[in-house]
């Protein structure tokens, strides 16, 4: 068993220790529980940003630690982000065009 228990304990393939993985799994479970709690608590205006923030955190954690991007070559991050950024751009642009711009009240 590799002896490192922290995020920086990486060998050539960049794999952390088993304990570290379990910890990450635990954090992910907690974040999911928080999401569902936020959903049931009906927090009003902060609910949506909060939910988005929590899921973003989960997303980033899985990508960085389970998919090893944090420890791996920046090139992998690069080719992944190329697609990811454009995808986020597209979803946001369409949301704007459909749900925000028409409501701005400028006659079309």
């Amino acid at each position: 068993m590799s002896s490192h228990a922290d995020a920086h304990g990486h060998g050539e393939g960049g794999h952390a220790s088993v304990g570290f993985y379990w910890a990450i799994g635990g954090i992910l479970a907690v974040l999911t529980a928080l999401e569902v709690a936020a959903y049931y608590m009906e927090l009003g205006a902060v609910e949506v940003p909060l939910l988005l923030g929590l899921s973003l955190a989960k997303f980033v954690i899985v990508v960085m630690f389970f998919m090893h991007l944090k420890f791996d070559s920046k090139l992998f991050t690069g080719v992944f982000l190329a697609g990811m950024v454009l995808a986020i751009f597209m979803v946001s642009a369409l949301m704007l065009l459909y749900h925000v711009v028409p409501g701005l009240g400028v006659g079309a």
Partner: protein
Amino acid sequence: MSVATDTAAAPHTAHHGEPTGLWSWITTVDHKRIGVMYFLTSVFFLLVGGLEALLIRIQLFKPENDFISAELYNQLFTMHGTTMIFLVAMPMAVAFFNYVVPLQIGARDVAFPRLNALSYWIYLFGGLYLNASWFVGAAPNTSWVGYANLTSTQFSPGLNVDFWVLGLSILGVSSIMGGVNFITTIINLRAPGMKLMRMPLFTWMTFVTSFLLITALPVIAVALIMLAFDRFFSANFFNVAAGGDPVLWQHLFWIFGHPEVYILVLPAFGVISDVIPAFSRKPLFGYPVVVYAGVLIGFIGWGVWSHHMFTSGLGPIADSFFVATTMIIAIPTGVKIFNWMATMWGGAIRFTTAMNFAIGLVALFTVGGLSGVMHASAPVDLQQHDSYFVVAHFHYVIVGGILLGMFSGLYYWFPKVTGRYMSEKLGAWHFWSTLIGFNLTFFPMHFSGMFGMPRRTWTYQSELGVEFYNQLSTIGGFMLGVSTLIMLYNVIKSARSGAPAGSNPWGAPTLEWSIPSPPHHYNFPSLPEVRSREPMWHDAEREAIEAVTLAEPESEPVMPGPSFWPIVVASGVTATWALVMTGVWWVPLIGLAYTTFGVFMWAFEDPFKHLKSSH
């Protein structure tokens, strides 16, 4: 077969150890052979698409003509556009990616040779499937952009749109895999010393294009999937009665569509960015600027799509945004044009056919760019949209830009592929007939469009006053037909009896010119070390490289062996999609099972098994 021979005494010819015969082509994983197959197939489809265009032009020769029926006319212009974009312009560029990129970066093959073969076979089968529609009399007929909800079963009940929606999604798979392959190849298989900023421009533009392929194609793929669900399983994506929005199709189509036009044009830019320096005997002016302009175009190309939708009522805010981005994207494009001109400035220019086509591109693309900036303005576009003016615009960029670039590449790299020059005399005929025929066909369309002739319309009234322009276009169209035949004749004749060419017939600067023409199947006996952007122009560097690249290896490098599974999987993918046409949900699963079988056989095939049997 590429078995490593232990006998150094064996005669070493260019084709040493290479298998021949039909089976060897079917199972080949050699990027050069795949490149050649891509090229020949795209020329075949060029002839098909050209024939369709000529039928259209005959119909439009005079007002109220009834040479062909309105229904057939719809099928012709739809298949013409779809064929030219997806079966000609894109794959012809991929042909050059395949043949040239590994040679330019000093690689023995692409990163995934079998996947590369799969891309080709899917392209071929997808193209044949799309065209099979002619034989059942139901070719697609809702234009290459297939706007909803004309494509719904309500308004298009026949098989026509089925062929289109399924055929295009098959082709998308091929392009995405090609993109993945070339990104990996360019990042990972560069010879020692071939830094990113030393790569030839053609490789750079392939790189940018590949990113556009892997990002833009999935968007259209999903749009097509949704349309397929609407048609085959009564989903509501574009069903107005259920609240669906046909304009969503337009968004998705053009989010793909505008990056797509750069997928088409960037490779051509890449070709001439290599050709112009080679025949001006000067390094490309402002190399980093040309590279960054290309990257920038690829990026901004994602933010302009709604300039195709100014007439669909997105409102002034959205319109203004897209007007601005569209005008901005013209800037990096213009920058490139100045770089090409500055490269020629003061150079020792040799007007070969390849160079003529490259210069022709610069001139004609500029015309298309200018009309593009004109209708980048929303109020202007309201007049020009869906008129022949737009048809003129995109033919100037697509034929004037892309096709000329591809022809330039053909004349430039043909000696590398075959070891023979193409005939310059026939080349001159080809070039001038293309140039004159092209302008005769498309320049008048600016006028017929301004006078109000709508595109995609079967015929026109004589009162419109556009008959003269249409006659010019038709005459020009036939000249273009003749010019294509000249090219074909030149290719066939030169391949057989062209003057022999050496390893660097043009005295060009890049790495592909350091190896024999035609190359060994392993390209490089051992990997050369690159120290500059123009390795073949610096004597010391050239000699060091050629000592490696022209040497006969004692034992041939180990290359992956042929594989039968790419063609099996490709036929499976095509069959799976085609079987969706039955409308019975489980029938495509038969195709899927067959595909899965092929995938497993592939996965467990050892690409080097051909070596083991001989030891």
